[in-house]
């Protein structure tokens, strides 16, 4: 389309008198405005798409960070636990307690949700280890604990990740 326009443009120039070459013709001007509008439209669409991708990326990042934080703490405590209050076998529970004794004495760690915060209370000291968490549940099969939860980003169109991880308790 552009090429044919250029051809028209050059043939018109050589065919017509000199005085007509001064300034733009209406066709040239229309074509120019049309092209500018087309390019502008594409650019605006691209910018909006990029903005959407950026928000999605931030949401994804938020979910990944919270999942990682939650799994690291759970892995650490469950791998040390010698016993737990999670019924074996039994229905899933939303609050789990893990007990163990090491060289520094006896320890008790409790995991539970407060709102959407995953709270780890160890030896009476509570701390929030992950945010935007829901549906926390613990299921036990022998020394294997299955921890399930969902992390949902506070931004973006509900970007979330549902985790179901098997973690082994210290046997005996």
């Amino acid at each position, binding site marked *: 389309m552009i090429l044919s326009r*250029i051809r028209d443009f*050059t043939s018109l*120039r050589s065919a017509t008198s*000199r005085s007509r*070459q*001064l300034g733009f013709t209406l066709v040239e001007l229309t074509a120019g405005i049309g092209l500018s509008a087309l390019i502008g439209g594409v650019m605006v669409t*691209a910018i909006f798409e*990029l903005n959407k*991708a*950026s928000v*999605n*990326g931030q949401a*994804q*990042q938020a*979910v*990944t960070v919270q*999942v*990682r934080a939650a*799994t690291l703490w759970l*892995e650490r405590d469950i791998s040390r636990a010698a016993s737990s209050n999670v019924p074996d076998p039994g229905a899933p529970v939303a609050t789990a307690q893990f007990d163990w004794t090491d060289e520094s004495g006896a320890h008790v760690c409790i995991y539970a949700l407060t709102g959407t915060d995953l709270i780890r209370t160890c030896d009476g000291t509570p701390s929030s280890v992950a945010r935007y968490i829901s549906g926390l549940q613990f299921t036990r099969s*022998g*020394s*294997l604990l299955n921890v399930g939860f969902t992390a949902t980003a506070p931004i973006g169109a509900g970007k979330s*990740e*549902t*985790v*179901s*991880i*098997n*973690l*082994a308790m210290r046997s005996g």
Partner: protein
Amino acid sequence: MIAILKQTLKFLSGRQAAEAARSSGHRSSRSQRGVILVEALVAIAIMGSATTAMLTSLSSGAITTSRTALRGTADWLATSEANLIQEAPFQATPGTYTNIAPPTDYVVTNATTPVIGGDAQIQTVTITISYQGLVLVTTEILKVDR
């Protein structure tokens, strides 16, 4: 943007020069036209490459973020699989263990190989986590029959 402005200025000044040349009877307008076309093409090429470079760098950020997310999921899947295998009854080499149930589009596999210099009571278990055919995590654990 600066390139466009420069081109526009050149274009306009070129036109004025051609006009002046015409009124004074010189014949330089034909060569002026050629230069303007080439200049326009160069400007378009520069704009095109600049825009492409900008969009490429912006999209690479989005790709990195999504790869990090996939890798994060693959990490906890590998941990889950490893713990499940460690707690399962020992299977003679070569054999496989029951896999965890992964989320949609993820595939989890495991394979056992003998340990060099070891006996039948020890094996290496290789765990592979892939997403739509792309291998994200490969990890090895040792399992003993005890």
